């Protein structure tokens, strides 16, 4: 089958790299490549999602530009990776949301915020938006708890279904040459590798971002972002459990789990994305796929917005700004949920899937004594 342009370039590079193999100790991509002699679209999507973009293979490569072979693995795999998000998205007619992702996601956020403002105003007096609120359950005066749960629950479920379908499509394509069934060991191994960002360390000295000096801190900022997100998710989950199981509705004291988790998570979601954004604009343009800067920026922008509005909402809860802040925060969160399957959020899903497949392949490799 004829490969599309982005796959064809990745195949060209993997053929070169497979004849060289100097980078095999740097990360998971090259050992996985060595287990193949030919590279189909699914194989390339798999390898691209194994790549964390640490840049080490670029600065270590004797054939990177200006060499005539023009080997630029980080950029080429970034392009394939971004295209894989689009190609595996479900339902198909929404794939075009990836084409102008920054615009699509900004629109979703704006619509979300505007929707809540309009909703609050039309269900209540416009004044509710600008009053000072001293009533402890004032959030639910603006929007009843059941309405919030229904709206966000539905959005979340729809996103989950779309994400699951995308995962299924990616998984089927990526395991073209991996017949083994996924087992507990591989799932756990992948969880460890993803959770520690094992392959975002430039082969041990740190990542390359601006030049050949390994000074990059993206792993640290990604940890802040990712664990911040998980903490926020845990905060919401704990609040839901306390509401329904323990009959303890919000608001919660500062030391209660939803507050502690949410505050820490929110701070992570503010600092992490800022760090990632600064790293991105300082990055050597040779390493970046220009086409995916919109996807990256939109997603870290959404996470930053979610974290910032959440923290502000907490701080301004008893002031006249509360109504607007609540609309802003709920608008961002809803847009984040709705756009999850059509944003860079999916990188986590496919990265995890690729790491599971790699763990499976590693086991096979271990059983082979001599590959020479």
């Amino acid at each position, binding site marked *: 089958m004829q490969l599309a342009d982005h796959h064809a370039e990745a195949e060209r590079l993997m*053929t*070169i790299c*497979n*004849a*060289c*193999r*100097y*980078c*095999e*100790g*740097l990360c998971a991509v090259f*050992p996985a490549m*060595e287990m193949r*002699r030919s590279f189909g679209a699914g194989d390339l999507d798999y390898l691209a999602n194994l790549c964390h973009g640490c840049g*080490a*293979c670029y*600065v*270590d*490569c*004797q*054939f990177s530009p*200006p*060499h*005539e072979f023009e080997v630029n693995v980080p950029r080429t795999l970034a392009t394939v990776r971004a295209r894989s998000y689009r190609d595996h998205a479900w339902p198909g007619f929404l794939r075009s949301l990836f084409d102008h992702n920054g615009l699509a996601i900004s629109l979703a956020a704006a619509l979300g915020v505007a929707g809540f403002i309009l909703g609050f105003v039309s269900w209540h007096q416009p004044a509710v938006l600008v009053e000072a609120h001293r009533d402890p359950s004032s959030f639910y005066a603006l929007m009843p708890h059941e309405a919030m749960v229904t709206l966000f629950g539905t959005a979340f479920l729809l996103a989950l279904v779309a994400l699951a379908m995308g995962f299924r499509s990616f998984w089927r394509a990526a395991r073209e040459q991996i017949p083994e069934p996924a087992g507990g060991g591989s799932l756990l191994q992948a969880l460890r590798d993803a959770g520690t960002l094992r392959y975002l360390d430039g*082969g*041990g*000295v740190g990542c390359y971002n601006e030049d*050949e*000096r390994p000074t990059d801190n993206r792993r640290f900022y990604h940890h802040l972002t990712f664990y911040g997100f998980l903490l926020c998710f845990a905060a919401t989950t704990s609040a839901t459990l306390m509401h329904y199981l323990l009959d303890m509705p919000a608001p919660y004291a500062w030391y209660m789990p939803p507050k502690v988790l949410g505050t820490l998570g929110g701070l992570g979601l503010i600092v992490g994305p800022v760090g990632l954004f600064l790293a991105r604009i300082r990055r050597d343009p040779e390493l970046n796929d220009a086409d995916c800067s919109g996807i990256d920026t939109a997603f870290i922008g959404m996470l930053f917005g979610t974290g910032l509005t959440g923290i502000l909402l907490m701080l301004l809860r008893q002031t006249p700004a509360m109504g607007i802040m609540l609309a802003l925060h709920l608008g961002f969160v809803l847009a984040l949920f709705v756009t999850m399957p059509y944003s860079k959020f999916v990188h986590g899903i496919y990265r995890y899937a690729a790491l599971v497949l790699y763990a499976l392949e590693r086991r096979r490799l271990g059983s082979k004594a*001599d*590959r*020479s």
Partner: protein
Amino acid sequence: MGETWDVLVAGGGNAALCAAIAARRAGARVLVVEAAPKFYRGGNTRHTRNMRCAHETATEHLTGPYTEDEFWDDLLRVTQGQTDEDLARYMIAKSSHMLGWIGEQGVRFQPSLGGTLSLGRTNSFFLGGGRAMLNALYLTAEKLGVEVRYDTPITALEIDNGRFRAAILNGTTRIEARSFVAAAGGFEANLEWLKESWGDRAENFLIRGTPYNRGDVLRMLIDAGVEPVGDPTQCHAVAIDARAPKFDGGIITRLDCVVFGIVVNSEARRFYDEGEDFWPKRYAIWGRLVADQPDQIAYILFDAKSLKMFMPSLYPPVTAGSIAELAGKLGLDAARLEATVGDFNGAVRSGSFDHTVLDDCRTEGLNPPKTHWARRIDEAPFYAYPVRPGITFTYLGTRVDRHARVRMANVGPSENMFAAGEIMAGNVLGRGYAAGIGMTIGGVFGRIAGEEAARHAVG
């Protein structure tokens, strides 16, 4: 405008950087001048991947011990005795300290690469390859305060009675230095020089490294009376894919499939026993064999059953459904090629094929014979790789002593000139090659040259 430095290092590869770092650590002010632009810095080092050092025990990255005696035996075997035993044994003894020292300079290692398990005990592989190794050395040198200038060839040397005075950079800048370290490699990329020994055949050679390995410093030193060492006519040449670029195709243009098929020249005739010995022991003779064929080109032919038995290479093989079609695609005489393949197939005596041992698959009554791994070429599709001589390095160099001090012909050791790396490899490696030994020579003598140069310059 003149400048004065303690130590001037010519070159930018492993040997040059080891010398610069060692000299700087010994307190000298060091200037490194590299003829190549920054991307191509480091000469052949950028294409290397490991270093052969003696060690007493297995380590995290090495599967077992490699004693100094075993190292010496290997060196004696590959050079067939063309080595300076005293210097070679001294280098081998020093090599056992090299892994630790170069690790302290930021170079990182990993277990042997896929497809190179035979080297896992003897050779330490650089994590990320030779360019990663170079990057680490340059970063360390920079942190220590070594100054490096790229695009800066030395165009003249001022040498009086074996004493270095100054170098002219880029034809303009005059640099004085108390000591001079020549670590600027051989002349493998200098086609004019290669032609002195090879004639017009050299026009058809491909150069595996960068176009900057021109040997200018080597020539200036010899012209100034430095005693040469090594065969001036010889070079390390392997058969690489004929479609490779003229320069700097590196490792990925190599082909490891000779033992699986037959090799014919442009007259569609075989010319050498393809199954003489294991490939790692024979790959380095094929460059010269092809250089002796008409138009310096040959074709490795094999069939479907061998396609996946060797390391993949950069370019896909030429593919055809029949031998005649393959001949057409290669521009060979179809009838002649069919006859060559037919004769070969008819001479093959069946045995049990096993490419990991010297098996009993061979030809009978064929000249030249194929003495192992001979299997009929009869299963379509048929494949071919065109190959040409690929030049890795040259053997001519400057004679040195244990202190890496160059010797002046008929005079004795120079007062303040030192040499390290490929430019003096011929002292130890008069012929042949063993994987990773070039980096050992560069690392060990680079460090010695740096320390001795600093000792002379700053006491």
